[in-house]
């Protein structure tokens, strides 16, 4: 590990955000690098100063009362809750009452709403599972480039074992499989590699047997290609570019189609 590699990770180490494997790597670098060791000490001292200073500002009692009062009033009154209990100042009323700014601000809120719908929530969980898998030692439960080793490994662990296809000839190397959890249910993940990039292909059984064409989305900087075929839902997740992820999905679907 170089100082450049360590620079951001030192912060994550100080913040307790690194998994054990990466923490060991960063600590090994720090043990041999006085500059980065000093950096970690400085970060820790700053964190201590901030934590010790009690920087949370208590909300004024009057504000708490205003909000308390506005809640039931909002329930009883109308669709414009602020009308019931006006702000101490009219400052924010402009957009609360539906000005042009309000319309724009509301689009931000729409994003929140969308992010919380079921499909989006599951895709967010898929991205989380992908991120978890990238931590040291979490990527594969079974390591093999042989589909005839990976596929049987899933048997008995899931209601339906995911199809495991060798796409090495097409530039996507099979590297193994993993049992993961998404939406509080076990789910199969087949792991591929494209150059240095990991592609997780999550496969779950679905009640619908109708085929659904693929969709490509970006969540938290990761691309997700999702599709549904023959009673299975697929999500391919990676940080490779959308074109390559599409290529992966198309080749997978074509090979599946070819296999009957």
């Amino acid at each position, binding site marked *: 590990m170089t100082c450049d590699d360590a620079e951001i990770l030192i912060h*994550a180490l100080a913040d307790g955000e690194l998994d054990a494997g990466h923490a060991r790597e960063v600590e090994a670098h720090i043990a041999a690098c006085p500059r980065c060791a000093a950096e970690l000490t400085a970060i820790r001292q700053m964190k201590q100063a901030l934590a010790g200073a009690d920087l949370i500002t208590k909300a004024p009692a009057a504000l708490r009362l205003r909000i308390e009062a506005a809640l039931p009033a909002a329930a009883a009154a109308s669709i414009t809750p602020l009308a019931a209990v006006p*702000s*101490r100042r009219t400052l*924010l009323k402009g957009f609360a009452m539906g000005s042009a*700014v309000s319309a724009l601000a509301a689009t931000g809120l729409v994003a929140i709403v969308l992010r919380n719908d079921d499909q989006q929530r599951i895709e967010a969980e898929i991205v989380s599972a992908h991120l978890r898998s990238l931590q040291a030692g979490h990527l594969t439960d079974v390591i093999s480039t042989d589909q005839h080793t990976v596929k049987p490994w899933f048997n008995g662990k899931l209601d339906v074992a995911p199809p495991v296809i060798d796409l090495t000839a097409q530039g996507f190397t099979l590297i193994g499989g993993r049992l993961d959890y998404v939406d509080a249910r076990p789910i199969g993940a087949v792991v591929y590699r494209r150059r240095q990039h990991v592609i997780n292909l999550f496969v779950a059984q679905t009640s619908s047997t109708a085929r659904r064409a693929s969709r490509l989305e970006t969540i938290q900087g990761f691309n997700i290609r999702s599709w549904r075929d023959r009673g299975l839902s697929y999500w391919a997740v990676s940080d490779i570019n959308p074109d390559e992820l599409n290529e992966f999905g198309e080749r997978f679907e074509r090979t599946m189609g070819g296999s009957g």
Partner: protein
Amino acid sequence: MTTPHDDPERARRFREAALPHLDDVYTLARYLLRHQADAEDAVQECYLRAYKHFDTYRGPAIKPWLFAILRNVCHAEFARRAGAPVKALDDAPETTEQAPLWQDSVETPEGAMLRQRDASSIQRLIDTLTEPFRETLVLREINNLSYREIAEAAGVPVGTVMSRLARARAMLRAAWLAQEEP
């Protein structure tokens, strides 16, 4: 005529979930807006919007969700102050030279005099940071959000959170050192 908002059970659930975080939300608003009265109004608006959209909250942690709403309210307030259309903080170039979106009325809170000197001087230092670095530092060190929760609240990838936090700490340290020089 009843609406879903009339449901007293819904109001009770919202109180129990959201009101315990009032101090956290208010603290973030203070740092984002750097103005006590504006912060109070923004927090009130945030809670009313959150209540209205409570059905869209799906957990697990409510703090990032509340913070995301607060950010939207504050961005609208920035726009009002600037007399310009709403522009997300994230659209701003991430350079240290970048001017704060809004720089006047950096007020010292009345209560600050009563607080221990360390806290208020640290607050002033944090106030000198530009966005989005100030917000990232506050979410991490004062509101105690995880990287993933900050990413959710700010609507950016975790990698962006990490680089912003590193920059924020470098900026804070520079301000700190500059202040300690005789």
